[in-house]
């Protein structure tokens, strides 16, 4: 199975696995929002936020090494913020003369860059803990609880159901192409044909995939009709949040609120 299409959920019995998905969902969004609102250079707050996310990792039994490794996947985007090191005005730390012009590396630039990288890293960890400790069906319930439109959630749920079927379809298409178009296992050797030809073969595969999906969609609709589908999306009643859940939710939000207050009192 393709790495991108493996369901990230990892079954477990940890405290976080058992916590209601609605509570987790809201807390993760609040955590990411808090991280985004934390001012540049409020280092102690970043450390406290990191300790929160590490605590959650420990509670989830997912393994710190595993979560940190997956979190590094989002890091390449940091390149986009790299020019800030030189473009933000401030106290120069290092001046690099390159030919006719000079690059000035400033303390303020470094602080802004480091803050952005930290924010991104912390947010990704929180999101990873959420999806790895929560089955997708539970996430759908959480989305309903925060008032994502019902139709959209229903589309999500159908999309999820057929994602793996269609990913397998794509793998079959790719395998068929590899076995027919002189695909070379050697890294240096490119497969035959011109670039445009190769792109158009891929285009044909995309068209083919669309056609198969379109027809599959029709069949699914007919099958749903045969089972009494009338356009109404029905789901099991979701039990209301218990007092304990509300306490966890309230405590989590209070911690994040206090961290934010702490950050703003000192750094603004």
């Amino acid at each position, binding site marked *: 199975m393709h790495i991108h299409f493996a369901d990230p959920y990892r079954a477990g019995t940890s405290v976080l696995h058992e916590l209601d998905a609605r509570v987790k969902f809201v807390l993760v969004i609040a955590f990411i*929002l808090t991280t985004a609102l934390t001012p540049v250079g409020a280092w102690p707050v970043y450390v406290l936020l990191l300790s929160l996310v590490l605590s959650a990792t420990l*509670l989830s039994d997912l393994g710190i090494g595993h979560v940190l490794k997956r979190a590094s996947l989002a890091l390449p985007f940091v390149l986009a913020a790299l020019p800030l090191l030189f473009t933000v005005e401030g106290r120069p730390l290092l001046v690099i003369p390159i030919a006719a012009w000079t690059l000035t590396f400033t303390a303020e630039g470094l602080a*802004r860059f480091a803050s952005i990288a930290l924010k991104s890293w912390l947010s990704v960890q929180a999101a990873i803990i959420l*999806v790895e400790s929560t089955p997708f069906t539970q996430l759908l319930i959480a989305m309903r609880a925060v008032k994502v439109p019902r139709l959209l959630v229903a589309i999500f749920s159908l999309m999820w159901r057929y994602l793996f079927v269609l990913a397998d379809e794509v793998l079959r298409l*790719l395998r068929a192409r590899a076995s027919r178009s002189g695909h070379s296992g050697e890294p240096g050797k490119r497969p035959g044909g011109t670039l445009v030809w190769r792109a158009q073969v891929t285009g044909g595969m*995309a068209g083919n995939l669309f056609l198969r999906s379109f027809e599959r969609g029709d069949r699914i609709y007919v099958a749903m009709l045969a089972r009494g589908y009338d356009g109404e999306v029905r789901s099991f009643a979701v039990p209301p949040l218990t007092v304990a859940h509300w306490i966890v939710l309230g405590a989590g939000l209070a911690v994040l609120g206090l961290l934010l207050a702490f950050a703003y009192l000192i750094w603004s």
Partner: protein
Amino acid sequence: MLNSPAYMHVPDGFLSVPVSIVLWVVSIAAVGYALMRVNKDLGERQVPMMGVLAACIFAGQMLNFSVTGGTSGHLLGAALATILLGPWAGVLVLTCVVSVQALIFQDGGLLALGGNIFNMAVIGVTVSYAVYRVVQKIAAGRPWGTFVGGLAAAWFSIVIASLAAALELALSGTSPANVAVPAMGGIHMLIGIGEALITAGALAFLSATRRDLLKPGDATPAGGRLAWVIGLLIALGLAVISPIASSNPDGLEWVAEQLGFLQNAAEPTFTIIPDYVMPGVSSEALATIIAGVVGTLIVFGVALLVAYLRRSHSGAPEQQA
């Protein structure tokens, strides 16, 4: 193929909160309208059809072809979805794709999701639609209109969406416009070529096998004119703003400052060695200290709780991944 096909999925931390909120509001409005329109057109078929086609576009992004030296071109699918399904269904399908990418696979952030939906689902789709319609009008029903329209729609949708992402980064103060706009635009002008070729290939395949799906002639669904106008305005607006912003980054920063986006960055409110002197024991300083102490205590308490729960939990069976 560990990397995402697009470098356009902005992660959390890169968009400032005001920028994120504005983009969320715009995206929610657009998706809400698209839901209503598609529901009107498809009725009860909406859920199965949109669900399967969103899965199709998502899985279709695995389709690739080798370009050179280990790099490969991918399908992103905004233009293809728009041409085959119309603008509003296109917005819905792409919204689902981008949302699941962010939520499940961490391709793009959750707070930044509003921005990513805006760039890929709203801009990507409306620009594709506008370009495709314009080319079709010029072609006046001749068959090349479909292919040239597909090529142009795919290329423009990628490039214009990337320019929007670059400008959002610049407005958030996370990447200077004079670097972000040419870099993002340049990369996506190349990525756009692959997208254009794949899209045209897909349209050629479909016109040979299922010409009825391409519906030449009646590609003006109800509300299509709105998408057409929005797409054209976005494309023209960004095409004009981007070069101005990149040659004149101070102008954009000035706008950002006026809007209050850069307040944290604009004021030198911190130094690594703080020269902040406590002005006696004012109530503010006291509040600061109390907040700090309380915050630290609470985090300490959480850590203790974790340790306690871990200990009571250590007898539990190992997780089975």
